[in-house]
């Protein structure tokens, strides 16, 4: 990666993290308010009289945690499931149940943590950007700044300090934006995912349910695929071959009486066979693109990239522990489909001048990243291409993330589990 590219990437990463942390302020402020009210609720609960009211009190908290789950899910690429059991019994029983379930305490722990931490991180991330400009301009007007003004923790009281310390301060700020802010964003998302998601026991049950669901979806998708192939072969190729046989039969009957007409029928039969072959090729490509068997996933993806209008850089690292292990065929086909569909989308809609395809094996997951420098604004809810990718990836229990800010290109990130 070139230096300019790396810098662009770092800038983007810091910008995205700042946006995320700033968005966190919307949940952090109510969380802080809740934290302030917490002692009151706790006090009333000890007196028992407040217990029937607890479900009412928990409602805004749950609304808040739901908002946070949605916000964090957008960057994580997968939903954070709600850990709550449905309420049962009288309001008194419900109140007690609330006190007993771990999820309440985890919600509260998140509220306190995010109330303080989220506020701090959000304000800091947003303030860091203008403070760089502030520091850089300080040498011009430090003498007019209030007495005792500091830069890099040093009081500015002489020219030589004023000409060095603000640059050091700007450096520190840039370092914080580059290193700390993206990590803060990740931690924030991680904390929310850990505390607001189901606990291990619950999450295993959920996981089984989710796997059952994706398995059912995969079976459904597989069934639909088989039906489509059957229909293509039955209505297309088979019918075509029947008509060829018919023409050959007719040609045979006319051969002696009217060789000219027989010949015309022979030629028609040949055209019919050529059409049938073309159809067969399309069907085969839909089942399993032949280039995947010939060249494996890396070669097939490189061939896809080479066939595009715009230059596509391809980076592929499929080695695990020094040896390249083949990904399961179904995953290979899905990965190929994802890249093909993404490149088609780029060619059709993005107006991009260049794009990048990255395939990486991370442990037992195959990660596919397709990035372009086009006009962005891709909406997975509208584009049928993205919806198709999401379906196909979900059927294999994978994750799909689309990041497409208007005017700043589109990044599609797909993760597919591939056994071990």
């Amino acid at each position, binding site marked *: 990666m070139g230096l300019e590219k790396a810098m662009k990437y770092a800038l983007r990463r810091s910008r995205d993290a700042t946006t995320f942390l700033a968005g966190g302020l919307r949940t952090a402020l109510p969380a802080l308010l809740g934290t302030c009210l917490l002692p009151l609720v706790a006090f009333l609960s000890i007196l028992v009289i407040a217990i029937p009211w607890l479900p009412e009190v928990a409602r805004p908290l749950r609304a808040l945690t739901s908002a946070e789950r949605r916000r964090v899910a957008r960057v994580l690429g997968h939903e954070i499931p709600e850990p709550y059991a449905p309420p049962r019994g009288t309001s008194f029983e419900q109140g007690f149940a609330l006190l007993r379930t771990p999820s309440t305490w985890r919600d509260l722990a998140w509220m306190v943590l995010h109330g303080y931490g989220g506020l701090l991180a959000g304000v800091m991330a947003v303030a860091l950007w203008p403070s760089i400009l502030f520091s850089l301009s300080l040498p011009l007007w430090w003498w007019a700044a209030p007495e005792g003004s500091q830069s890099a923790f040093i009081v500015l009281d002489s020219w030589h300090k004023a000409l060095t310390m603000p640059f050091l301060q700007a450096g520190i700020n840039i370092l914080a934006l580059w290193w700390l802010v993206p990590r803060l964003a990740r931690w924030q998302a991680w904390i929310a995912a850990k505390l607001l998601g189901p606990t291990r026991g619950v999450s295993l049950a959920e996981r089984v349910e989710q796997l059952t669901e994706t398995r059912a979806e995969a079976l459904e998708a597989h069934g639909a695929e088989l039906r489509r192939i059957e229909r293509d072969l039955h209505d297309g190729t088979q019918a075509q071959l029947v008509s060829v046989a018919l023409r050959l039969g007719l040609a045979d009957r006319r051969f002696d009486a009217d060789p000219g007409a027989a010949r015309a029928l022979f030629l028609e039969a040949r055209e019919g066979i050529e059409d049938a072959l073309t159809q067969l090729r399309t069907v085969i490509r839909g089942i399993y693109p032949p280039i995947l068997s*010939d060249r494996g996933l890396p070669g097939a993806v490189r061939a896809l990239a080479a066939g595009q*209008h715009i230059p596509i850089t391809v980076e592929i690292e499929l080695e695990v522990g020094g040896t390249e292990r083949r990904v399961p065929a179904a995953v290979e086909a899905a990965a190929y489909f994802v890249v093909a569909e993404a490149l088609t989308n780029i060619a059709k809609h993005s107006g991009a001048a260049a794009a990048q395809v990255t395939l990486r094996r991370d442990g037992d997951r195959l990660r596919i990243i397709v990035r372009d420098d086009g006009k962005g604004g891709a909406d997975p809810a509208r584009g049928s291409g993205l919806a198709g990718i999401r379906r196909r990836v979900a059927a294999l229990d994978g994750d799909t993330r689309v990041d497409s800010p208007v005017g700043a290109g589109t990044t599609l990130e797909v993760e597919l589990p591939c056994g071990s």
Partner: protein
Amino acid sequence: MRIVIAEDNALLREGLVLLLTSDGHEVVAVADTGPEIVPALLAHRPDVAVLDVRLPPGFRDEGLRAAIEARKALPDLPVLVLSQYVEETYATELLAGGAQGIGYLLKDRVGRVEEFLDALQRVAAGGTALDPEVVSQLMTRRSPLQGLTPREREVLALMAQGHDNATIAKTLVITERSVSKHIGSIFLKLDLPPSDSGHRRVLAVLAYLNA
């Protein structure tokens, strides 16, 4: 002509031998696996080789690899590669060592015997025969082609397939004079150096499409 064939499907292999011998050619060797190809070509030095892409033992792209390898040892060896499907990347790889005496066709084309034999003849004579499907794949990739008229595109496609002016004129039912006129205009628009020799022209077009 003396011909070496590599094809693993017995029916198709026999069909090819029948077709070629009935046209007066001699099939000097038949390979049905990938590793046999290059030694057979080196031993027999045929006038042209007809190779299937997917062959035992790996059933991947053995034929294509053999073609490229053989051309490294015998650069003038004309090779016609046949496949159930065509892939632009394979064409690019085949043409990388020069387009002279290279053919790459869908197996379906064997059914049009005259055209197939004509393509074989062309390749053996140092010409080029690219499948229309490969050419259209190559052409959709090049966006500057949008400046060409539909007719000029047709002419360009036929030229890239390796046909000469007479064949292009016959296929499009126009006069050879207007074919030359179209070609002049194509070369002007694509900013290619004008060249009258049929073969150098094909090379220029392919180099352009392949860039």
